[in-house]
Each structure stands twice: as structure tokens, then as C-alpha cells.
């Protein structure tokens, strides 16, 4: 296979990002406390989500709000497969279709979860790719609400807002770093692939791209399903590390959080996705610490619940007002390191 110039640059860019990711992961594993490990892990999972989001939003330029739902589907599907029967007898005593009567190894479970999420994403995608702009966004919103209602309502399968516990904790930070690095390569290569290029061209000028023979709907569907699959991976990584999941994290708050990350960094590029994720993840951690009312230089600051939300919203509003294309705009990391041709 021969690579185009853009693809070669893409590989270099992805490699630079990978080095950064591995570096941060290595530092944390070596020197971080348990608490810090957890935060960094959360950042890597969110990075996966944001990367997956970038695949569709960044290339097709359609705002998607359902990503947390797909992450949830992946997480629950894997959790249901992998949790030991003994555990499920306790946590899901009345699950239908013998869901509590089998258990699989983590790899098979993950495969099944990815397949299920991918299939659902494909079915939904068939409809969503035909809509454009705001219409697609609204349907994605509807999907989020529907999936969330299902999680809440079928407590016999998903346990609703209660914790679904007993998932084997097979993932460590190291595995998350590996998955995230793989994802950076996948997402970046998709961006530079024939499909990604066609999709971006169609986002700039849909009619023009169509008249050039680009099947915009098919391109969008490919990106949508890839995005869904990657979200499932993120969900699985989340479940396999924490060991418990509930419906709450897969709803609006998480949607906005990850969306803010992508927007801040710049949704058009993979580098932007990564930058936004880390800025907000660590920035938010700092704000949360302020929220608890710490003592700074001997002054007891008051407890301020909601500060992190205010900051998050402010980040979105300011980004939109001052730099709608995000910090990175159209630049990838290699454009900063090397001169743009």
C-alpha cells in the first residue's frame, strides 16, 4: 500500500501524539498516587470518547449529542457478558433471556459489546446520515434520551441509577494508554484516508462534493459506525477499570463535558481533540479542588458547588466567541513541529 503525502504526515503526527500519551501514562504509573492514577485514567477514557467523537463531528461537521449513549451501550453490553454468574445472581436476580446465566472472558465480552454497539450504530446511522445539520443533532439528542430512559427503566438488566457492580477489573492505566494510542492512529489515519478527505470536502460544500460523485451519506455512515465502535471501546475501558457502572455517567453532563473538550481543542483535528481533553480534564480537577473549599495560604475558601460547571460553560462560550475553530483550528501537531507545506 502506498501512502499519500498527507497520510505520511498523519502517521508522523499520530506518532508524536502517541509519544506524548505514553509519556504522560508512564509518568503517572511510575510516580502517581492511587488518586492521581484514577484521574489520569479518567482522562484517557475521555480522550477515547473525544477521539471517537472527532471521527464523526470533526470530519462530517455535524454535532452529535448521542455519544455518551453509545459509550453506555458498549459498557453495559460488556459488563453483562463478563460479570461472573455468581455476581449476577445477586445483582440481576430477575434478568430476562438468561442474561444472568452465562459468563464470558473479557476479550470475548469486549468483542460482543463492540459488535452490538456497532450494529446499533449502523441501524441508527442509516437514518441519521440522511439528515443534515440541526436535524441530525436533534435526532442524536433523541437517541440519547431514549437510550437513557431504557437504562433507567429496565432496572432488571441495567440497574438504572444504581451501581451495576462485580465487573472484573481487568484494565490498568497501561492498557488504557495502549488503547488510546491505537485509537489516535486509527482516528488520524481515518482523517487522512480517502473517506475522511471526501467527508471533509463534503462538509465544506455538500452539493459540490455530491456533484463530484462523492456518496456523502455512505461516507457519513462509515464515520458514524466507526465512531460508535470506538465509543464502545471507551465504554468498555471505563467499565473494565472501575468495576461498577451506572446510567448516570452516560447522560447530559458527560455529553457536555466531552463536547467541551473537543470544541476547546478544535474539532477539526486529532491534535485538537487530545489537547482539549487534557486541558479540561486537568483544569477541571483543579477547579474541583477549589470547589471543596481548600485552605490556601491559611485562608479557608468557602465551598462552592457548581464552580466546575460554570467554568465548563465559560470555556465553551468563550471558545465559540473568540475561536470557533478551537485552539488548534485546522492545524495538526506536525504542522507546529515542522513547517506547513
Amino acid at each position, binding site marked *: 500500500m502506498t501512502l499519500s503525502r498527507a497520510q505520511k504526515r498523519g502517521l508522523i503526527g499520530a506518532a508524536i501524539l502517541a509519544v506524548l500519551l505514553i509519556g504522560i501514562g508512564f509518568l503517572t504509573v511510575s510516580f502517581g498516587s492511587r488518586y492521581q492514577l484514577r484521574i489520569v485514567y479518567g482522562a484517557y477514557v475521555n480522550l477515547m470518547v473525544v477521539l471517537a467523537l472527532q471521527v464523526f463531528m470533526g470530519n462530517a461537521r455535524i454535532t452529535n449529542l448521542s455519544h455518551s449513549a453509545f459509550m453506555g451501550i458498549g459498557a453495559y453490553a460488556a459488563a453483562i457478558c463478563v460479570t461472573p454468574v455468581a455476581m449476577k445472581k445477586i445483582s440481576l436476580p430477575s434478568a430476562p433471556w438468561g442474561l444472568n446465566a452465562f459468563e464470558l472472558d473479557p476479550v470475548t465480552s469486549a468483542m460482543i459489546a463492540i459488535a452490538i454497539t456497532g450494529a446499533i450504530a449502523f441501524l441508527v446511522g442509516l437514518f441519521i446520515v440522511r439528515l443534515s445539520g440541526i*436535524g441530525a443533532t436533534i*435526532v442524536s439528542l433523541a437517541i440519547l434520551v431514549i437510550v437513557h430512559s*431504557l437504562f433507567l427503566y429496565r432496572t432488571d438488566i441495567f440497574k438504572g441509577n444504581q451501581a451495576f457492580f462485580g465487573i472484573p477489573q481487568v484494565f490498568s492505566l497501561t492498557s488504557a494508554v495502549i488503547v488510546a494510542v491505537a485509537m489516535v492512529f486509527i482516528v488520524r489515519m481515518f482523517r487522512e484516508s480517502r473517506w475522511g478527505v471526501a467527508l471533509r470536502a463534503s462538509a465544506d460544500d455538500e452539493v459540490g462534493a455530491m456533484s463530484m460523485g462523492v456518496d456523502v451519506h455512505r461516507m457519513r455512515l462509515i464515520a458514524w459506525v466507526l465512531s460508535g465502535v470506538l465509543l464502545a471501546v471507551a465504554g468498555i475501558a471505563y467499565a473494565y477499570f472501575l468495576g461498577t457502572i451506572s446510567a448516570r455517567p452516560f447522560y447530559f453532563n458527560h455529553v457536555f463535558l466531552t463536547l467541551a473538550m473537543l470544541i476547546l481543542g478544535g474539532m477539526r483535528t486529532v491534535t485538537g481533540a487530545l489537547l482539549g481533553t487534557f486541558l479540561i480534564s486537568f483544569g477541571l480537577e483543579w477547579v474541583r479542588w477549589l470547589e471543596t473549599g481548600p485552605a490556601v495560604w491559611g485562608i479557608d475558601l468557602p465551598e462552592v*458547588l*457548581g464552580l466546575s*460547571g*460554570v467554568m465548563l*460553560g465559560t470555556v465553551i462560550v468563550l471558545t465559540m466567541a473568540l475561536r470557533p475553530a478551537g485552539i488548534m483550528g485546522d492545524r495538526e501537531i506536525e504542522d507546529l513541529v515542522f513547517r506547513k507545506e
Partner: protein
Amino acid sequence: MNALSFGAEYALLALGLAIVFSIMGLVNFAHGEMIAVGGYSMVAMAALALNNPLIVIGVAIICAMAASVTLERVAFRPVRYADPTTGLLTAFGVSIILQNLFLLFVSPRPIAVTSLYFLEWPIEIGGLRISSLQLFETLATLFVIIAMMLFLKHTVLGLAMRAASLDFEMVRLLGIRANRVFAAAFLISGLLAGIACVFIMARRGSVDPHLGFDPVLKAFVACVVGGFGSLPGAVLGGFLLGAIEVAMLVMLPQSLGGMTDAFVFGIIALVLIWRPDGILTPRREKGDKE
């Protein structure tokens, strides 16, 4: 009657969203926070021992309007001529900020507001027992819709707003001040939210930071169903949504009660797939000048 009053509430809110969308292409997700602003202003009045119902209602509506116009000034001016996605995300941001400000400065927990209970008493019409609140709500909505129609048809500002939905630049080329048109749109939008707020508060009797989120989500959907930016569409969508929701409540077995939202949103998704531009919007070829 239930369907009518639900529908009326959604129609009020949907109209408020549609009027802003039609002139500036902004999906104002922060609309729900106007309702919350109204709600909190009632709390403030209760604290000041202002219990005259007319004052309470009036001040709540004025607060919602003021908040709406302020937002236009502060948050939405920079993204005025930006694409809809930028506007949508900005509105999301504003919504998050406001919700958390309520959380921060007031309280994360619901606060009871009892000053509007007087609106609710059962009345009997031709042997049918209905609640006065529902009657008021339906009537108020009808009144507002008629008033809006008159405004849009007979005042220069109303005409300018209708014209702006087609070609804002041309409106400016006639010397009509864009700021005034935007301010008017947000003022009306806030007024509608304020009226909806009165009824929502009278029914719920309490306010919390997320008060406006659910109703606006639904109103948003109503807008889409009716055809985004079409004002009659917003009204139609609102009432349709109210009808669907009540029908779901009646028809779905008790055991599926928690699934109402899922079904409602499912139907909405289907409607959109059937008519991607909404029911009342004429089909438009892609590439047509907007």
C-alpha cells in the same frame, strides 16, 4: 384538556425558541434557564414578603424577559452571524453556566414557591371536572398566539422580524437596526418563557436549577417536528407533542410508565426521518439560497 394544557406549555416555549431561531439561526438551549430565572424571582419575592399575585406574576415575567435580553447582549452577540452549530454550542455553554450559577448562589435543592397555588382549583364545565390552571394555561396560550400574529402582521418591527427570517442583510439594507430586531426577538422569547414559567411554577410549586431543562428539551423537539424556524410549525409541534405525550400516558400500560419519554422521542425521531425539515416546512433542495 390535559393534552391541550401540556401542548399549550410546549407551544409557548417552542414559539420562543422558534422566533429566535427564525431570525438568527440560533438554537437557544439556554431558553429553559429563563424559566428558572422567573422561578427564582418568585422565591426572592416570597423572601421579601411580596405576596400580591399580580406583582409576583408580573415581576417573574419581567425577570425572564430581562434575562433573555441580557443573554443576547452578553453571550450571543459574538456568534450572531456564525453558523448554527457554533450558536448551538454557545447556547449549551450558557445553559450550563446559568444552571451552575443557580446551584452556586441559591441552592442545588428545590425551593418551594407557594404564592401561585391560588391559580389551581377544580371547576366543572358541562359535567366535566377540569382544573382551572389548565384552563388558564390554554386560554393564555391562545391569547399569546393571537397577540403574536397581530404583532407580526401589523407592526414594523414584526414585519422586520418576518423579513429577517428570510434575508436579514436586506432588512439592514433598509436601515432597520439589527440590534433592535435581535433585542425584540429575545424580549418576546423571554416573555413567552416568563408566561410558561408562571404555569410551570403554579403546577410544580417549587424551583430547582434544572427546572427549565426538561420542558425546553421537549419544546425543542416540538420546534423540530413543526419545522424549525416556522412559527405556526412551533405551535403545531407543541400541541402535537402534548397530544402524543398524553396519549402515551393513557395508552401505555402502567408497567411501561417510565418509558414515556423514550416513546415520545422515538416518535419524534421517526417524524424527522419522514420529513427531515419538519412538517410545515416546504421541502427545499439542498444548495438553495437560504
